[in-house]
């Protein structure tokens, strides 16, 4: 790799999956095998994906570090770069710069604990990476709870994997849709999950916080409403982890865009505990 910190790896798209009408998952594999061998990352880290000609965009690495040889990213089509990314197909080249940022402290804080994942909409992407990381080392953890909600049936991402988690005996999955999210127009034929917003469903789920660690990802409003509920359920603030999704351009602490007070989301984050989040100025 050259000494140019802005130089991306070149990766080839090997699999495309449409999660929702405007959200897509790519599996990327290194074109250069040396990069593949040297590359490693931890759950929670992110990267900058480039569509050459359009620019770069920041997404998390959605696949688990326990799955070698490839990485996956899930993105919603919003602007110039994501539109160009969506127009690509299998075999095209995408740039990737990373992994950047810190990661979930799985070894130090998660081993031997009950793990509760709470995600909203596309917020499941950064959480999924941690879920598969945990499930690939399942015996190292006690209970595993997943509470996942989306606005409508159509907005559920990783539908097949949710099915898989539902069927597993050692995972307690609670899935929910916002009220009215199960209409037929959203392609939903019979919904066996709950109805209601994630914070309320979480409160009624009976999940307790003792000896537990929580991972929360989703739209800022959901995080702000979920954290108090977790506190009520007995989750300690130091054991509640979330990610901050600020706008990022360089990913390496130079472009001065992602800070919340002195906390540079791309360098000190994106993963932080609820206790740390409480210290930050309310500017995210």
């Amino acid at each position, binding site marked *: 790799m050259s000494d140019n910190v802005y*130089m991306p790896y070149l990766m080839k798209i090997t699999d495309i999956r449409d999660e929702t009408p405007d959200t897509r998952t790519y599996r990327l594999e290194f074109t250069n095998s040396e990069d593949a061998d040297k590359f490693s990352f931890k759950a929670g880290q992110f990267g900058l994906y480039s569509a050459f000609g359009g620019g770069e965009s920041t997404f998390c690495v959605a696949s688990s570090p326990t799955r070698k040889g490839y990485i996956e990213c899930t993105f919603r089509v919003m602007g110039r770069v994501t539109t160009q990314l969506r127009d690509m197909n299998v075999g095209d080249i995408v740039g990737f710069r990373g992994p950047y940022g810190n990661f979930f402290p799985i070894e130090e804080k998660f081993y031997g604990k009950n793990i509760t994942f709470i995600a909203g909409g596309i917020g499941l992407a950064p959480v999924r990476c941690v879920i598969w990381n945990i499930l690939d080392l399942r015996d190292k953890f006690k209970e595993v709870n997943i509470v996942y909600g989306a606005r409508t049936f159509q907005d559920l991402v990783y539908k097949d994997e949710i099915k898989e988690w539902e069927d597993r005996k050692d995972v307690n999955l609670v899935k929910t849709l916002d009220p009215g999210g199960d209409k037929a127009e959203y392609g939903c034929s019979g919904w066996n999950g709950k109805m209601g917003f994630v914070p309320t469903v979480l409160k009624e789920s009976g999940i307790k916080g003792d000896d537990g660690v929580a991972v929360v990802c989703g739209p800022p409003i959901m995080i702000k409403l979920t954290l108090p509920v977790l506190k009520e359920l007995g989750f300690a603030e130091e054991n509640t982890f979330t990610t901050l999704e600020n706008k990022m351009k360089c990913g390496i602490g130079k472009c001065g865009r992602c800070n919340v007070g002195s906390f540079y989301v791309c360098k000190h984050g994106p993963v932080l505990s609820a206790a740390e989040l409480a210290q930050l100025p309310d500017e*995210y």
Partner: protein
Amino acid sequence: MADLYLTHEKAVQMLKDIAQKGIEAFGPVQKDGSHLIEKITESSPIDFNYFITNNSIKEALFPRYEKILSYKINQEGVEVEDVAVDKSIVIMGGHPCDAASIPLMEKLFGWDFKDKFFLQRRENTTIITLACEEADKDCFCTSLGYSPRGEIGSDILLERVSDQGWKLKLLTDKGKEFAKTYESYFQSSLDIDKQYPKLSDQDVPVQFDPKVVKKWIDTHFEDPLWEEIASNCWSCAACTYVCPTCHCFDITDDATMWSGIRTKNWDACTLPYFTLHASQHNPREQHFQRYRQRINHKYSIYVNLFNAISCTGCGRCSRACGAKVNILEAIKMIASAAGGK
């Protein structure tokens, strides 16, 4: 080393000759009634009779936009080429407040990831600074521990001895080497004009204590004083682009179907959409939140990260501001609110 002197004419000639030799020379040019630091070409109207340039020497090391990589797109895929940073540079015409910003920016561009575009370019650069002979109400370098005759960040300091010339003060090996290679432009004597130096540290009074300011900032994030400080601000980027220590940038692509470049362009925290999320949520919606970030970053965040204030007191942002927002007034309001000096 015998004393060396340089006159205005020789300096103009030297800069133009350096530019001929393929070295990037930056110097002060007089255009439309004010002086700017610009890349020198044969026809540049170089002039050394000025109080301070509108922009700072940062443009030489951190240009308004620069190519960081280029690529070709074809059937097989994409070839990406790196960009070499090998040109040597000479910068002349900045003041000690400009030169002092370079070590500050080195801290950020060297934080974990080494940004070669700034660091390597700094390696190839010789900075020749003009000691100040004038200060106005917006200057406050002394309040931050700098001096109108400061040597921080410079390779050579030129101290004016007459209306026509300066005495050289070689500060670094690079400075000595420069003096050797271009000794034909220097002379060993010059008639001294007794009135120089006209300016000393006392002429620029210390106006506040940065520690008091930082303490107040760290504890008053929601204080209404921020709205009062930034009441006139109309969110443009004049202050940040003329500032010697502002280093924020954007990364964008410019491409045709088959080839393109990726560039690093200046950006500013005061601009309305600097932190706009793809979901249209903007953490800094209001103009005063953005201006608060500007002062917060310089006087508190940079100190937390690098134990240095990212401001050298040059006052350019106050002079360039069309809405008459004055950073010195703002800091003094904070200091008095904090009950300090």
